[in-house]
């Protein structure tokens, strides 16, 4: 007996969940993009950090964004323009890539979703001055969100928010670890739902539910399909739950990832010692970087190889959103590093419209057969 249904329900219809929550509790909801958003500060301000994914058919967004921008950006704008996000009290855009950067401007000009805050984080993460700037930007963000919500954030608010996030991330990390060791216990589609729900669910409720779920795992009920060939997924945002079942149907088992909507979301604990904002900044600096940020030339390649070795995976499936430049630029060197280690890999570009099931499964099966 577990609470997977709640996670799946929330992950499937986050906007409906948020609307209900607002209706029942009047909670302030702040939308955000990207796992570089300093959620800890949003939570400390008493609001719900709500990640925006954007799905569905594009029609209104076509008037503002060319077809060569990714479906995350187009889908999110579509949601905003169609009024699906009118429950938001504000929206936060951290600097990520060129597309999100322009989405922020276009959103600011055309959409009314409460206050609009740009968090212009540094692109460099590995220098002293960029670290200082990062902390400065977080402090500025604190002031901006205090203004936006009409609150004052105390040191205690920040500390207690950080403690919550450390606990949430610790649960998520553990659930990933358990699954990697015993894939039959949790379906990868379930894992995806849990992580996605974690980005939108009221955080106190989330903590309770994660605790319940983690508890149910130790019950030792072996559910799910028998394990297939172990693979690691690499990419950015993956908002297509069906991909997991396609991979499993093709004979694979996902035992790790470096997704923005996966392990990068919960990697890294925040120290409570010293200045709390500095500690928060440290986590965002030291966590494995998104390709839109710079932290060394081979860091991501080394990281993927590490995940593969630690999880005993046999291969890597790269899943990029079509038109995602930062990931596409890294791909050749990552593939090269994997090739040198003798780790096979496959690349698949995905869009909001799921790739034709037949095409994807054929390629996936062929790849897994190779392993």
């Amino acid at each position, binding site marked *: 007996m577990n609470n997977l249904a709640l996670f799946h329900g929330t992950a499937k219809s986050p906007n409906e969940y948020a609307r209900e929550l607002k209706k029942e509790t009047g909670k302030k909801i702040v939308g955000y993009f990207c796992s570089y958003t300093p959620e800890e500060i949003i939570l400390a301000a008493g609001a719900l950090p709500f990640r925006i994914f954007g799905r569905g058919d594009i029609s209104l967004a076509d*008037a*503002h*964004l*060319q077809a*060569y*921008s990714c479906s995350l950006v187009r889908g999110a704008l579509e949601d905003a323009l169609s009024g699906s996000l009118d429950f938001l009290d504000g929206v936060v855009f951290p*600097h990520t*890539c*060129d*597309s999100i*950067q*322009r*989405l*922020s*401007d*276009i959103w*600011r*000009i*055309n959409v009314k979703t409460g206050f609009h805050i*740009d968090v*212009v984080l*540094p*692109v*460099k993460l590995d*220098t002293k*001055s*960029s670290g*200082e*700037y990062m902390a*400065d*930007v977080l402090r*500025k963000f604190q002031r901006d969100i205090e203004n936006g919500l009409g609150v004052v954030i105390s040191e205690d608010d920040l500390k207690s928010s950080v403690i919550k996030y450390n606990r949430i991330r610790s649960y998520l990390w553990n659930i990933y670890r358990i699954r990697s060791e015993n894939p039959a216990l949790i379906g990868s589609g379930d894992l995806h739902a849990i992580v996605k729900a974690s980005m939108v669910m009221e955080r106190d409720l989330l903590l309770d539910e994660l605790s319940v779920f983690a508890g149910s795992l130790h019950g030792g009920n072996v559910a799910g399909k028998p394990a297939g060939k172990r693979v690691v997924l690499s990419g950015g945002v993956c908002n297509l739950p069906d991909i997991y079942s396609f991979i499993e149907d093709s004979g694979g088992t996902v035992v790790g990832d470096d997704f923005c909507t996966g392990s990068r979301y919960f990697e890294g604990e925040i120290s409570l010692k010293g200045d709390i904002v500095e500690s928060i900044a440290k986590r965002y600096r030291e966590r494995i970087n998104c*390709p*839109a940020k*710079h932290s060394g*030339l*081979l860091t991501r390649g080394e990281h993927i190889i590490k995940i593969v070795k630690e999880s005993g995976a046999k291969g890597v499936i790269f899943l990029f959103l*079509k*038109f995602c*430049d*930062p990931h*596409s*630029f*890294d*791909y*050749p*060197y990552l*593939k090269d590093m994997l090739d040198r280690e003798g780790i096979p890999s496959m690349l698949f*570009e995905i869009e909001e419209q799921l790739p034709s099931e037949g095409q994807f499964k054929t390629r996936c099966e062929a790849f897994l057969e190779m392993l």
Partner: protein
Amino acid sequence: MITDGQTPDQEKEKRKIKSVKKMKEIMTNYYLEAKTAEQTGKKIAWITSGGPVEPLIVMDIIPVYPENHGAMIGASKMGVDLCEKSEQMGYSRDLCSYARADIACAPVNGGPIGGLPRPDMLVCCNNICGTVLKWYEVQARYFKVPLFILDTPFCHTEFSDEARKYVRKQVDEYIQFLEMVCGKKCDFDRMAEVGKLSVRGQRLWQEVLDTAAYKPAPLSAFDAFFHLALIVTLRGTQTVIDYYTGLLEEMKERIASGISAVPNEKYRLLWDNLPVWYKTKWLSEKFAAHDACLVADTYTSAWCGSLKYIDENDFLGTMAEGYSRIYLNIGVDEMAETVIEMVDKYDADGVVMHSNRSCKPYSLGQYDIQRIVQEKRKIPTLMIEADMVDERSFSESQIETRIDAFMEVLKAR
């Protein structure tokens, strides 16, 4: 569309800009010097088009621009082959075609000048886009040379104090980086001099572009695309000042003698975004056949757009803001205001926007800029979908129809 394309040869000669010959000489010498740097012991830095070149001039480092090389590749119609090669190397076709062409060039010494000379260092300023970061990372891995990144935070609605402090600090770090790679100290007196020369050069470039406000315009945006090269590559040198002084003279003479870029200028248009490098002549002739002149553009004016932020007497201190607040590093609404200012200044009847697949910071937001311009100035705008270097994304007969239809709309007003 039947037009009289037969102008007497003398007429055509008269209309040609004489300074072009000088520019070709200067650029040839510049590339020669770069390619023989090993022999002269000079160091080479590859730098982004929006990057601060002045400190390189001060340190006697030869600046080389992969983007300028990209433009040359496009203009020589070598873009498709190189882009295809990069795709074989694993780079997605949706990536910036400058980057793809350059990345493919390096291992084969491809392109119209047999490849760029190896860099001793890479200087990447991300004020123009996030792609350059990735592109320069690729080259840093390939050439195994030191990479300096000047991170200029995006100015959605302001240039924050936090950003100002950060960029200013990085300017110092940049100088330290150059000192380390060159093994010598920076001469700050020379820095001040070069700063002044840079500002003078930018002012001259602005004056050259300003001459197109005259009716009829002595030079078109297509001419400006060509003459742009010096202010981008050698900003801070006396060469730039001498050249643009000469070019400005020539423009003034043309105005005095009644020589215009388009023989029968009836319609004045503004161009937005990078050029379609492999089709500049075709586009120029197409519009000229309609008696239309592209009198100004947002791309070439970007290299004198920071003048308002730079104090020539404190170049080092003010360059942080100057480099951070360029046209591509500001919000879409601020860009729209700039476009409207240009429409007014040059008295444009319409705007032609190149929706350039390769450049997201320049192209995403164009639809909103288009709308704002149409609302505020009630002039028609034309969207041309293409790519700056990859000719596979250019559909000639379709674009011809769009241009014809747009000109029909203009003529009927």
